[in-house]
């Protein structure tokens, strides 16, 4: 190998070494994966894709559209039910992985990125609830303001600042959450799906 390899070459070598195509896009899985409990991670991902797609549509059209037109009501409902299913699937996925002790076998980073994705999702969901631009969002944001001030967060994030909440919800937080989810999925692919305790031992 050349001694004076460029940084792009070093990145390429490290990437190919750490992320083998067979690991990233496997066509076989161990027998224990044939169980419904292993379905909820990808179900969460599917709900996340629906969330992004319906959210992009809502972003293009705006509140006057989603409050008044029948198509707007429909897309708004798709966004709401996607987030409901997203959290239901994610919580069932979390329970399954917790009782499987899914951090076994050098999978601690996978577990931690999953936790980060969960907490980031809660914040993203919260900013979504306070930008519905209806009485529900008004109630939530005014009540949350006192809670956030009590925690000392009010100096950085004012729940009554609709502009800030909208930008967080449609720009920063989806990017951060998307990056964490990609990181989590790459780690799952690198380390493999955790085996049940009776198979994996440890």
């Amino acid at each position, binding site marked *: 190998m050349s001694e004076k390899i460029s940084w792009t070459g070093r990145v390429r070598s490290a990437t190919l070494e750490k992320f083998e195509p067979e690991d990233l896009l496997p066509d076989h899985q161990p027998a224990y994966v*044939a169980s419904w409990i292993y379905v909820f991670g990808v179900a969460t991902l599917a709900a996340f894709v629906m969330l992004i797609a319906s959210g992009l549509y809502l972003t293009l059209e705006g509140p006057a559209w989603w409050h008044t037109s029948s198509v707007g009501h429909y897309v708004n409902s798709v966004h709401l039910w996607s987030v409901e299913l997203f959290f239901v699937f994610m919580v069932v996925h979390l329970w399954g992985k917790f009782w499987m002790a899914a951090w076994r076998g050098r999978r601690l980073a996978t577990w931690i990125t999953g936790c980060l994705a969960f907490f980031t999702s809660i914040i993203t969901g919260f900013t979504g609830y306070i930008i519905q631009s209806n009485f529900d969002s008004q109630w939530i944001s005014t009540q949350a303001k006192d809670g956030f001030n009590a925690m000392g967060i009010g100096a950085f994030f004012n729940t009554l600042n609709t502009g800030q909440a909208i930008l967080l919800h449609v720009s920063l937080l989806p990017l951060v959450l998307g990056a964490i989810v990609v990181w989590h999925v790459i780690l799952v692919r690198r380390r493999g799906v955790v085996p049940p305790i009776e198979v994996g031992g440890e």
Partner: protein
Amino acid sequence: MRNFLEISLNHPAHYITFGPFSVSAGNLSIIIAMMVIFTLALFMPFPNHEDHKVKGSKK
């Protein structure tokens, strides 16, 4: 005219209280639904599970 599928939210939420614990009926039903889904996922047979077995598997 209201559609029969519409649910009116124009009233305070229903809360269920157990001593010091209080939870809205909506949140409680979601929690129960998640527990039912979790239990079903553990015990329901997975379709075509024989096809998923692979070479080199420990089972």
